[in-house]
Every structure is written in C-alpha cells, then in structure tokens.
C-alpha cells in the first residue's frame, strides 16, 4: 500500500509485543497482532 501511494525505500522494524499483559492480549494473540515501526521516503 505504501508503494502504491508512491513511497519508496520501505523499511520495517522488529515486531513489538504491544498488547502483552493488556486486556486485549487474547484478541491480539488470536490474530498474531504486533506493533511495528515503518519508514518510507517520498522520492526526491
């Protein structure tokens, strides 16, 4: 989707267990939901 919008040089960071120990942990585990950092560039 980022590339469809014109972005390039897409980077994705390591998964973070955003919901571990939170009330929403069970739903997050059911769908393997994690947090990620993303970086992309608008071409010059």
């Amino acid at each position, binding site marked *: *989707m*980022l590339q*469809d*919008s*014109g*972005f390039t040089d897409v*980077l994705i*960071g390591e998964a*973070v*267990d*955003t*919901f*571990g*120990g*939170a*009330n*929403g942990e069970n*739903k997050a585990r*059911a*769908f*393997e*939901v*994690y*947090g*990620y*950092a*993303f*970086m*992309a*560039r*608008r*071409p*010059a």
Partner: protein
Amino acid sequence: MAQKLPVDPDALREQVRGKYREVATDPGASFHFHTGRGLAARLGYEAAAVGALPDRAVESFAGVGNPLSLRRLEPGEKVVDVGSGAGFDSFIAAGQVGPGGQVLGVDMTAEMLAKSTQTAERLGLGHVQFREGLAEALPVEEAWADVVISNGVINLCADKQAVFAEIFRVLRPGGRLQFADIANGRPVPADALRDIDLWTG
C-alpha cells in the same frame, strides 16, 4: 474506481473519538491497550526523554510502537504528527528537532487537542503546535514537512490509501514517513472487518 471500504468512515471516526476522549480525560481507566509511562518503556522509548516530560504529556499515550526507532529526527526538521493525541510523540519529536525545528500535531478529538495544546504552553514549547484535522485531510500545506510521524492511528482509519496519499502530499520530495502501527500475522475474517466495535476494542 472508488475502493469499497469495510466500514463507514464517519461511523468509525465517532467510535474512535469516543474511545480516545476517554483516554484523554480518564487515562487511568481500563482499556484493551496499555497507556502511559509503562507503555513508553515497553515500546523502547529513551527513558531520559520520557522522564523529562510531565505526567500530563505521557499519561494518555496509547501508541503501538516507536515511530522514531528506525531513525532519530535531525535538528531543524519540520515534523507533522498525524493523530497526535495528547501530544506524547510530538513532545518527543520536539526534543529531537530542537527549537530550530517545528512540530505540528493534528488530531480530530477535541479533548486530546485541548490537553496537548495546554501541555505545550506549560512546557513553553513555542515550536510545537496542534491543529484539528483528519488524517485524510491534513490542515498542512503541500510539501511542508521533512518528516511525517504517526503512532497507532492509520489502522483506525477506514481508507488507508487516502491517508497515505495525504501524507505523501504534505511531505517534501525526499521527505520521510516514520510511523508505528499494528499488523496481524493471521487473516481477520471478513465479518470481523465489518464490525466497527472490533476496530477499537
């Protein structure tokens, strides 16, 4: 051809506003996600930067990752924070860009905007301001930003392609998008995607 969205964008926005109004005004309540200083530590934010902020700048933080973990901002950069909430990431960004930079937070929830604006005033951060707006229609001129950041917001927007197009518009050529968001490793059933209650809870 217009993309068919899984949910009505306006209905989803009202649901999101309701949830984050509560996060702004009652940050100690029980949510399905973590909040505040504990969350910032979990997500790997620099302890010194977070520790330097007052409670009101951190307590309503409800991000899902650290948008600045892949690249630290540079002094003097102009930053837009999409869905700035109570301002936590904007204040972290403000520390990195310094007084020669600018940070513009955009949020659609009045209670979040009031809180972030008052915090910026109390901290004397003249290079940080907050505006009301939507991720799909940012109140920012074209090619203004060196960097756009966002944290846990795009997943709550029905039309993600419209959000990315708008972010592309406000970034200068060569500018960067740095955001954090959730992604699922297992597919979510189609009927669940159409259930607005599941988007925010």
